């Protein structure tokens, strides 16, 4: 295995991230997205260099998933959110924006409006778009890995996904906080309930609060749906991005509160959440890569899960994947 001598490129990139060098981020993502055999070994090595085992703790950077149907106002919200995060602690922000690929050509039209909404180029803000490629409904290749790696250098990593369904659940496997964006009077609430999505988010944002009554109604609908599910404590925040912007303050307050809570007791909450996310993520990735048959060869999903649970609690994502691969090969 390539494990003995870690490739030097990976070590170099990892070191720069650990030194807080943000400018290396695009190259890191290029590597993590790559399917070339040599790159994939380097990518694993890089992740290993940045795993909790290697770092001695979970990376501090908060990973926030922002998701919601098209047209809900995610880009505008994100621009306002980034500005506020930058203003408060001058904290660097990375945005990983996921857009669907064409099924027929495999190509995609990306283009994040967030970058533009921010107007002035800011070296402390990274915006990178990803195409889902062949993965319909899920996260794009390399997004999870990029989020984990970037959380080492960026205090905030935001994953933006479009759609309702698979995307939310996969985002939840990597994000410390999942934030679902809802547009007033869109009838989305009912759809979310039907699709079982109401249970995933840690936070709801209702955009276009300037719409007044309609926005208020939507907030109330969401709150009552959440109470029915026994999740009455999940906050619902109305936000208006039109000047004068409203609600973004409170949203950032909540993100800060959550960060504090997850970091308390020596990162107890964060460790728990990320460990669970990595277990699920490794299983998803293994299944996608090697197929259902390979999972059966491992003795089924529950057996695979037990294999993962037997690893040390600070095992990184690359190690977890490798555990499954070694067991299925052996």
């Amino acid at each position, binding site marked *: 295995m390539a494990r003995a001598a870690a490739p030097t490129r990976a070590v170099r990139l990892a070191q720069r991230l650990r030194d807080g060098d943000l*400018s*290396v*981020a*695009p*190259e890191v*993502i*290029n590597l993590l*997205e*790559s*399917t*070339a055999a040599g*790159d994939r070994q380097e990518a694993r090595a890089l992740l290993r260099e940045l795993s909790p085992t290697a770092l001695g703790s979970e990376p501090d950077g908060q990973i926030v998933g922002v998701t919601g149907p098209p047209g809900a106002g995610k880009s505008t919200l994100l621009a306002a959110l980034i500005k506020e995060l930058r203003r408060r602690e001058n904290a660097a922000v990375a945005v990983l924006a996921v857009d669907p*690929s*064409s099924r*027929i*050509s*495999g*190509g*995609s*039209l*990306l*283009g*994040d*409006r967030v*970058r*533009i*909404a921010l*107007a002035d*180029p800011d070296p402390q803000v*990274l*915006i*990178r*778009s990803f*195409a889902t*490629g062949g993965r319909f409904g899920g996260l794009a290749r390399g997004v999870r890995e990029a989020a984990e790696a970037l959380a080492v250098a960026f205090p905030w990593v935001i994953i933006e996904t479009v759609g309702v369904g698979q995307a939310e659940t996969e985002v939840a496997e990597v994000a410390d906080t999942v934030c679902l964006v809802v547009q007033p009077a869109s009838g989305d609430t009912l759809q979310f309930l039907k699709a079982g999505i109401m249970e995933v988010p840690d936070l709801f944002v209702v955009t276009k609060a300037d719409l007044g009554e309609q926005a208020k109604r939507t907030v109330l609908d969401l709150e009552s749906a959440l109470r029915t599910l026994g999740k009455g404590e999940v906050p619902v925040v109305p936000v208006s991005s*039109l*000047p004068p912007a409203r609600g973004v303050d409170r949203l950032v307050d909540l993100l800060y509160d959550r960060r504090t809570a997850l970091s308390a007791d020596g990162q107890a909450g964060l460790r728990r959440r990320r460990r669970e996310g990595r277990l699920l993520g490794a299983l998803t990735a293994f299944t996608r890569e090697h197929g259902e048959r390979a999972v059966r060869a491992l003795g089924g999903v529950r057996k695979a899960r037990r294999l993962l649970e037997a690893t040390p609690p600070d095992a990184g994502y690359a190690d977890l994947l490798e555990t499954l691969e070694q067991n299925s090969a052996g």
Partner: protein
Amino acid sequence: MDTTPSIRLPEPDRPWLMRTYAGHTTAKASNELYRRNLAKGQTGLSVAFDLPTQTGYDPDHELARGEVGKVGVSIAHLGDMETLMDGIPLGEMNTSMTINATAAWLLALYIVAAERQGVAQEQLQGTTQNDIMKEFLARGTYAFPPAPSLRLTADVITYTVEHVPKWNPINVCSYHLQEAGATPVQEVAFALANAIAVLDAVKERLERIGKAELMERVFGRISFFVNAGVRFIEEHAKLRAMGNLWAEIGRTRYAVQDPKNLRFRYGVQVNSLGLTEVQPENNVQRIVLEALAVTLGRNARARAIQLPAWNEALGLPRPWDQQWSLRIQQVLAYETDILEYPDIFEGSKVIEGLTAEIESAAREELERIAEQGGAVNAVPYMKSALVESARRRLERIESGEQVVVGLNRFTESEPSPLLSGGDVPILQVDPEVELEQIEAVRRWRENRDERAVAAALDRLAEVAASDDPAANLMVPTIEAARAGATTGEWAQTLRDVFGSYRAPTGVGDAALSNGSAPQPITALREAVEELAERLGRRPKLLVGKPGLDGHSNGAEQIAVRARDVGFDVVYEGIRLTPAQIADAARQEGVHLIGLSILSGSHKELVRAVMDELKAREVEVPVVVGGIIPEADVPELKAVGAAAIYTPKDFDLNRIMAELIDLVARQAEGERQPAGAAH
């Protein structure tokens, strides 16, 4: 000779207003040009403004770099407007201004310049284009979000109806929709939907201030600015259909009664989209035929005409090129018998049938837009419909189904005497002009009463923030013009209140070239897949539009086709700074950059983008597309452009093959993609 009125008019009609869309460099240079044009028999003025003036930036703003005085004249303040109109009697002149986002401001400058000539605003005649909706759809020179933009439009209309009664406050444009690819039905329907959006806004305003009775007059002051393509019979029918629908809308939606107010009044600039860079002499006959579409039938004849020049696809036309186009109009009006007859199509089954067909299809389209809550809400729908139509048109030309003489058929040519010889047959704007204008605007700011300017701008901001329906922005705008504020200051004051805005790009929803793709596309897809294998990532292309130029068709079509052959494409719309483009290239880890520039500022902008890329150590191939004169190609290549594409490169698949090849060669050179700088 038969003199019965049914065959001949008792007296020939007066010719339409003849204009030349003109203006470049400085106010002084443009003023000289106008005077010469008027001496040649031109009967009205049509002012072309440069992009910074159109989008509300002063010549010394970063976004204005390379654009000052390029596609029109730079007007930064009252002094510029006075110089532009020097010696031209504004009480008698009929002036059309192609100005939209900043229409209120330029009209204010014109009113104050007239006032200084001793001409009262009541006497002024002319037109402000002032059609912001089509800027979101097709032309891209907007400055504020849709709602406050519409308010500005409504303010200009309600102000002029009362105080500048002979002014046409808005020219609702279908012209740019056709240039962006609209079919005749889309052109009619989208333009009328845009007009309805404006009229609804005005109506609401008038009702709130208790002047609803002005609506009849408002409707009568609305004029249109249309296009006419080379399929001139259908185009003529289109205009008849538009006239019928317009009168119907007036009667039913706004209760307009006076037939004079219901009349469909339009000016025209005929089609530029169909003009070719190859064998450009053929454009002359295209322009003549297109002019027939808007003059032949008396019942739908243009009130004002301006014709493009034969060499528009090559670069900016020179005064002589424009003179040629003016002479076409004069031959039509003064040599032919076109003005001697009543409507020659009345009773024609074909024309009446075509008209009815377009009318009913446009009515359906109007309903579709109404269902979405009107034009403002339907901008994304209309925009992607236009991108889609433009894509189809290109595919027809590529396949040869649509013949373009000299381009995809009959391409053999003798050497052209028009294109040989020493000089490039286009207008060259001296880059020194920008520096002069920057100097001039700084001097202007130094020599004015700062306190008066600040007070006027404060007042403007106050009115902009007010909810009072009677608070008309024209009033403080005229005050600011008088006090000596600049174009950039006026626009920035409003941006601060209204916020800024980016229109949808329309490419996201463009349909994919169908599943049963033509063979070349399938082959290209395979090449991209193979390249992706080799790179380890799908090849990623950044399509960038630097500068203020809003003509995004080319960029959009390249982006869509690149997606269709399998590229990951990053396209973020118009009006980006070179720094933004370079940042995006680095962060996105692209393998290739395509820049699209049609404003003539390619030399400055390509160099600026290259410098920004270098500063970020991004080393990927950069290709450039746009209206780029042959003579500029060596210079662009010298600063590092890998390939240059111009309108003669209509075969998008060939361009795609070259792009794939560029990325492959770069990969072989073992250079790193963007983002792998260190």
